[in-house]
C-alpha cells in the first residue's frame, strides 16, 4: 500500500471510529433536543414527579438513584453503588447521547413498562439540572 492510500485509509478509519465512539453532548443540548421533539416546554416539577413516584411497578427511578440524586445511589437488587445522576454532582452524566438513550430505554421499561416520551426525558433532565451543590 503506498503512502497516499495508507493515509486515506487511516483517515477513514479514524472517522469511522469517531462516529462509532461516544456521541458527545451536554445536558443543555439534550434538554433542547428532547424539548424540541416534544414540542412543549420542559418542566422540572413534572420531572421530579416522574422520577420520584412509582408507576404501577415495584421501582421508581428514585429506588436506585435516590429521591434527590446528588449522592451515591444503590442498585435495588444487587446493592451496587451508582454514581450521582445530577450533572452538577457528576460531570459524566448526560455527556453521551447514545448512553443516555440506552439507559432511558432500559430504565423506563423497568419503571414505567414502556418507553419514556421525549417530553418526559426533557422533564427529567430539566429537574436534574436544577440540582446544585
Amino acid at each position, binding site marked *: 500500500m503506498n503512502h497516499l492510500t495508507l493515509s486515506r485509509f487511516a483517515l477513514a478509519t479514524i472517522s469511522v471510529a469517531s462516529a462509532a465512539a461516544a456521541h458527545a453532548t451536554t445536558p443543555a443540548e439534550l434538554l433542547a433536543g428532547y424539548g424540541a421533539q416534544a414540542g412543549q416546554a420542559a418542566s422540572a416539577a413534572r420531572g421530579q414527579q416522574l422520577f420520584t413516584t412509582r408507576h404501577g411497578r415495584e421501582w421508581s427511578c428514585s429506588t436506585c438513584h435516590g429521591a434527590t440524586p446528588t449522592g451515591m445511589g444503590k*442498585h435495588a437488587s444487587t446493592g*451496587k453503588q451508582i454514581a450521582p445522576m445530577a450533572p452538577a454532582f457528576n460531570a459524566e452524566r448526560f455527556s453521551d447521547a447514545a448512553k443516555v438513550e440506552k439507559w432511558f430505554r432500559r430504565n423506563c*421499561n423497568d419503571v414505567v413498562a414502556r418507553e419514556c416520551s421525549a417530553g418526559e426525558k426533557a422533564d427529567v433532565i430539566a429537574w436534574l439540572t436544577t440540582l446544585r451543590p
Partner: protein
Amino acid sequence: MTHSNHDLWRTACAALVLAVGCASAAWAEDDHHKQAVPLLAQYKQECAACHVAFPPGLLPAASWQRLMNNLPRHFGTDASLDPATVKTVSSWLGVNAGTSKRAREVPPEDRITRSAWFIRKHDEVSAATWRLPALKSAANCAACHTGADQGDFNERNIRIPR
C-alpha cells in the same frame, strides 16, 4: 558418592517432590484464583454498571448464551443492548466461558450464586451474614470481596461488613 549420601539425596528429593506435589494440589483447588482473564472493555463497560463484572469463567458457555439472548429480561430488569454489542460480548463470553469440571455445571436460572461450587465455597458464611443490609444480595461480591472489581476473589482479601 557414598552410600549414606545417596540415601540422603533420595530422601531430600522425595521430600521436595512431595512438597511441590502438595503445593500443586493447593493451586488446583484454587483454580479460579489464578490470573484473571483480562476483561473485554465492552464487557466491563456494559456489564458492570449494575453489578460487578463477573469473570467469564464462572459460568459455562450455555449459560452465557442464554443470558445474552435474554437481556431485556435480565433477572427482573431490562438490560438490553444494541445487536452489534450483544454479538461482540457474546462471542467473547463464549470463548472465555468456564471449562473446568466445576464451571461446566449449568446452574439453576443460570445464576452463578446457585452453582454447587459457589454454595460450597460460601458454606462458612452464616445465614445472619447473608441477611446483612450491607450485603443485599449474594451477587454483590464486592460487599465482602474487596478486590472483586479487579476479578480478585482471593480469600486473603475478604472483609465481611457489619
